Every structure is written in structure tokens, then in C-alpha cells.
């Protein structure tokens, strides 16, 4: 029995239970929350290391053999995402100590935060289609409550849209799972990848692919079903928005990559065109939306959408290099988005406004924040030596290799516009002169440490990834190799005999 695969689920659940029971002792509760996140980082980090060195690991829950029971599988893609999730979880847990108001902390931020982490980890690690649906629901329910925590009017407004569209997406997902089960007789992803061969080229396969694209497309905020994201993500406090932006859309795009690599490994010209058109639309809409936004949180929300387009583009090429680019991009995008939203929270906190036009003087009075902002922002714009550059470079190379010149051109132009958006934030909020009164420090010294510490740590790690990209790139190569040739994954789940 592989304990390492259970820990990414058991640790957040245990932490959630403890923080729930300890809610009358706020000090202990917060300490537990942070320690739980640190323990999760230890477990996920160890799992990542073992998977990277020894290969794919799988475990059967309750001792029921695959394909009948629920399987947990960690391949390099899953393990990498688990590691990144745990890493940003620690940062957000620390930031929340000062960045979350007392009332929200008391009312259940900590348990919900860890339940959300459990849902995200579960979605990354499960090898079962229906179980994936269940984990989606776990993380959605936690995110619903986190979104409305505090009962502000605009929060409820955002939550109604978020809940509504996600219910539609869940129904489509469930319908797709039912259809898959009806035609293949299995829910185990590895098992289904073998049995779906009978459906190859039939109308059922096309229907399934479309349903999965729609269900996961909504969750990943892909064009044209992205509209709920900017309507919801600017409403909750910074720590909540940061985990949402860093993790939730990634779960959607991860599922799309997983399902397509296992079930539809050889997309026909038609599906590939659909994916690439969606990717282009997502990139363009995201950056265009960001251009016209004057509220810093809404602007960042549109940039989340834009990044999804790049990842989908790598999947759309469906070459090894394209998947390397997609996996690298998705892995580095988790800390990038989390950092940006945490910084967005600090910008609003220190200038007292969320409107970019009214901000100013942050470079002069908050040099550390300004330096930390450079890293994720210019990574997003695709500047060397930041990690986003390597992701985009690989994707563009893959596109040229696959002779998809149109989308490569779109990606490059969108990159330029992203730079423009980032430069706008920089020139307004950071460079514009302001008096010291405009930039007010709030909170005690220890609170400032809790707020700035995680941001700086995230930025430093991102810079390190950018300067020395080889380990992460190597992991992405391993992951892509396993996505293109799924035999190792199937063998790990069903046992080596299944392939013969």
C-alpha cells in the first residue's frame, strides 16, 4: 500500500478537521492551518521526487483491484501539479494570517481552504472518471462557500454566476461520464483508454470529446465560456482569489489534458482545429479583456484566461514538444497567478483603492513589492529569464514544428499585448508619483511580514525556476513522454499483464 499517494488527500482532510474543531482557539487554529500546509508540501514534494526518479505510482483504494475500485495514480504531470499546489498552499496559508479579516478566519476560512486543497489534490491524483467528478464537486463546494464567505453584496453577485455556470458544467461532465460508462463499461481511465478503441471514429467518440471539451472548458474558463471568471474572481479577498486563480482553472485544463491523452490520443484534424481555435480565442479574449479593465483584480482575472489559451495550444498541437510546453506552462503558471493575485491584494491594501488609475507611488514606497511584482508579471509577458519565457518558447517551437503558423502568430501577438497590459500596471500603480500619504502602511510589523514574506518567497522561487529551468523542464519532458505514450500509465494502474 502506497502511503505517499494517500497523504496528499489525508493531510488536508486532517488539517480541515483540526482547524474546524480548534476554531474557538484562533491562535492554535492558524498555527495548525500553516503546519498542515507545510506537511502537505513535505508529502507532495516527496511524492514528486519519488515519481520523478522511480516512475509512475498507483494505489488501489480499499483493496479493490483496478478497474473495479478507485485508483490513485501519480505520473509526473500529476505529481508536478501536486507539488506546485502544496507550494502555493503554504504561501497562501501564511499570507492569510494577516490578509484575511478576523471574521472570515473565525467563520471557517481555514477548514474550507484545506478542503479545497483536498479537492484539488484529489482531482490531480485520481485515475477514475467518476471519482474525478466527485473531486470536482468537493473543490467546487468548498470554493462556493469561500467565495461567499463574508456575505458582501458583490460577492453574492459573483457567486450566483459562478455557481450557476459550474452546475451546468457539472451536468455536462456527468452526462459525458455516463455516456463513457455506457459504451465502454468502465470508469477507470486507464481501462477506458484501451476499450475506447472500439469506438474510434464513431459518432459517440466525437460526442464524448465535445462533451468533455465543454465540461472542462467551462471549468478552465476557455473561450467562449470564460465570462463567469472575471465576474467572480475579483470579489473574494486576496488569499481566496489567489488560490482560485492559481489552482481551479488548472484543474479544468489538467483534466482536459488527461482525458485527451488517454481517451482521444490521436485527435482527428477536426478536433485539433477545434482545440486550436478555442486556444486562439481564449488567448485573444483574455488579453483584450485585460486591456480595457481599470480594476486591478478584474484585469488579473482576464490574464488568467489568456494563460489558459497557451496551455490549450500545446494540447492542440498534440506533439511531444507541444505537450512539454503545455506541461511546463501549466506548472509555472500556478505560482505565477497566485503571486500576482496576492500582490494585487497588497496593492489594494496599501493604496486603498482597486482602481489602477488612482494608484501610484508603489515603486517609491514599496520597493520590495515592486521587485516581487516584476517576476510574475514579466514571466506572464514572456520575458527572459522568467519561467513564462521558457514555456512560451517551447510552445512556439512546437507550433513551428507542427506547421501551425497562424496560431503561433496569434500567440506571439497576444504575448506583445500582455506585455503592454503589464507595462500599464507598472507605469500606473508603481511608477506614477504619489505622496507618502497615498501609500499607507496598515497592520503591525509581524502582519507585514506575513503578507510580504510569502510574496517574496514565491517570487524568488519563480526567478530560480526561470534562471535554472532544467529540472522543471526535465519533469515536463517526462510528463509529456508519458502523455504521448500512455502504456506506462496503463501498466501502472492495471498491472503489466494488461497490455499483453
Amino acid at each position: 500500500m502506497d502511503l505517499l499517494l494517500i497523504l496528499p488527500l489525508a493531510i488536508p482532510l486532517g488539517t480541515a478537521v483540526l482547524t474546524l474543531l480548534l476554531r474557538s482557539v484562533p491562535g492554535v487554529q492558524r498555527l495548525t492551518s500553516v503546519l498542515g500546509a507545510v506537511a502537505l508540501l513535505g508529502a507532495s514534494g516527496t511524492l514528486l521526487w519519488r515519481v520523478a526518479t522511480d516512475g509512475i505510482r498507483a494505489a488501489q483504494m480499499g483493496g479493490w483491484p483496478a478497474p473495479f475500485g478507485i485508483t490513485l495514480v501519480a505520473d509526473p504531470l500529476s505529481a508536478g501539479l501536486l507539488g506546485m499546489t502544496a507550494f502555493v498552499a503554504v504561501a497562501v496559508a501564511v499570507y492569510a494570517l494577516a490578509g484575511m479579516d478576523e471574521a472570515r478566519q473565525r467563520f471557517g476560512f481555514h477548514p474550507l481552504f484545506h478542503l479545497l486543497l483536498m479537492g484539488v489534490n484529489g482531482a490531480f491524483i485520481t485515475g477514475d472518471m467518476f471519482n474525478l467528478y466527485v473531486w470536482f464537486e468537493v473543490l467546487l463546494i468548498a470554493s462556493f462557500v469561500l467565495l461567499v464567505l463574508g456575505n458582501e453584496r458583490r460577492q453574492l453577485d459573483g457567486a450566483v454566476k459562478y455557481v450557476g455556470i459550474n452546475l451546468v458544467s457539472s451536468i455536462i461532465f456527468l452526462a459525458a461520464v455516463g455516456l463513457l460508462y455506457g459504451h465502454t463499461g468502465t470508469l477507470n481511465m486507464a481501462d477506458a483508454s484501451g476499450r475506447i478503441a472500439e469506438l474510434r471514429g464513431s459518432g459517440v467518440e466525437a460526442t464524448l470529446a465535445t462533451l468533455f471539451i465543454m465540461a472542462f472548458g467551462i471549468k478552465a474558463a476557455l473561450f467562449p465560456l470564460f465570462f463567469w471568471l472575471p465576474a467572480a474572481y475579483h470579489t473574494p479577498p486576496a488569499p481566496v482569489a489567489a488560490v482560485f486563480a492559481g489552482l481551479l482553472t488548472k484543474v479544468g485544463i489538467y483534466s482536459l489534458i488527461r482525458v485527451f491523452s488517454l481517451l482521444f490520443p490521436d485527435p482527428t484534424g477536426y478536433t485539433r482545429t477545434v482545440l486550436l481555435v478555442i486556444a486562439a480565442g481564449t488567448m485573444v479574449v483574455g488579453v483584450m479583456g485585460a486591456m480595457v479593465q481599470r480594476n486591478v483584480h478584474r484585469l488579473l482575472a482576464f490574464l488568467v484566461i489568456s494563460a489558459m489559451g497557451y496551455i490549450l495550444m500545446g494540447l492542440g498541437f498534440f506533439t511531444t514538444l507541444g505537450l512539454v510546453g503545455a506541461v511546463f506552462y501549466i506548472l509555472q503558471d500556478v505560482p505565477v497567478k497566485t503571486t500576482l493575485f496576492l500582490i494585487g491584494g497588497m496593492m489594494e491594501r496599501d493604496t486603498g483603492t482597486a482602481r489602477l488609475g488612482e494608484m501610484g507611488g508603489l515603486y517609491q514606497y514599496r520597493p520590495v513589492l515592486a521587485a516581487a511584482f516584476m517576476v510574475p508579471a514579466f514571466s506572464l509577458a514572456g520575458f527572459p529569464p522568467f519561467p513564462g519565457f521558457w514555456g512560451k518558447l517551447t510552445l512556439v517551437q512546437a507550433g513551428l514544428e507542427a506547421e501551425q503558423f497562424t496560431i503561433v502568430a496569434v500567440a506571439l501577438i497576444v504575448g506583445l499585448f500582455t506585455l503592454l497590459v503589464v507595462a500599464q500596471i507598472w507605469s500606473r500603480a508603481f511608477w506614477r508619483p504619489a505622496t507618502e500619504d497615498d501609500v499607507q502602511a496598515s497592520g503591525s510589523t509581524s502582519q507585514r511580514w506575513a503578507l510580504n514574506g510569502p510574496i517574496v518567497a514565491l517570487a524568488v522561487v519563480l526567478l530560480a525556476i526561470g534562471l535554472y529551468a532544467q529540472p522543471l523542464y526535465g519533469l515536463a519532458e517526462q510528463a509529456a513522454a508519458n502523455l504521448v505514450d500512455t502504456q506506462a500509465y496503463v501498466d501502472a494502474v492495471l498491472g503489466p499483464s494488461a497490455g499483453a
Partner: protein
Amino acid sequence: MIYSLILQVATRLLIPLLLVFSVFMLLRGHSHPGGGFVGGLIAGSAFVLYAFSRGVGAARQVLRFEPQTLLGVGLACALGSGILALIQGEAFLTGLWADLYLPGGIHLYLGSTLIFDIGVFLVVIGTVVLMMFSVEERGPAVIPSRRNDTS
């Protein structure tokens, strides 16, 4: 809270029945339809009914534990039943079974799945009650009568 003598008297009679029935459903779920989820809903509805007839404050006193505590303990039970199997060297969440022959000819066939089901039972009560109490506490204290509205 709605003041109604009929509701109050009926509630008094119904609550013990509902609670006993909820435990019956919980245990029956062992090998028949039923289980922690259904049982939890029935038990939760007993407390909700009490809150309707006597007010949330009184219902909180009767419940004795805060709903969040029930949630926490329930989740801990569910997690614990999985970890129990791990300690025994089995796969996570494997059902462990014990055949007990107690004096007096009582034969008990106990499994760790029951702990999981009790966890579900508590989580469902906690969730139902937490939601209803929150909604009830935010609403108007007494529902205004129709006659005052139309005048």
C-alpha cells in the same frame, strides 16, 4: 420561528420518533437500503423541526454541540476509519471486520465501515442544521401576519 400550538405539540411527539428512526436507518444501512446519509437527514430534520417550533436558540441548546463540531467529529470518524485500515497494514479505506460472540447468544458482526457511516451521519446532521440555523437566524424573527401587510 413560527408560533403554533399544533406544531409545538406535534414536534414533541415527532422528535423522539425521528431520532430513533434515524439511528435505525443508520444501522440498517449496514446491509440494506439506508445508511449514514439518510439517517443523518432524518436526524437533522428533527432538529430543524425543533428550531421551527421553538426558535434557533432553544434548538442550539437541545443539540448541545455546535454544528461545526459535529462536522469536524464526523469528518474525523470518516478519516479515522480509513487510517484504521492503514494501521492494520491493509489498503486505505479497506473494511475491517470482527465477529463477536457475546455472552447471552448475541452475535455481532462489526465492521470499520460503520465508523465511516457514523461519520457521514454526523456530517450530514451538522451540515443540515448549520444551513438551517444560519438561514433562520438571518430571517425576520417573527413572520408578520398577512392582515398587517395588506392594511
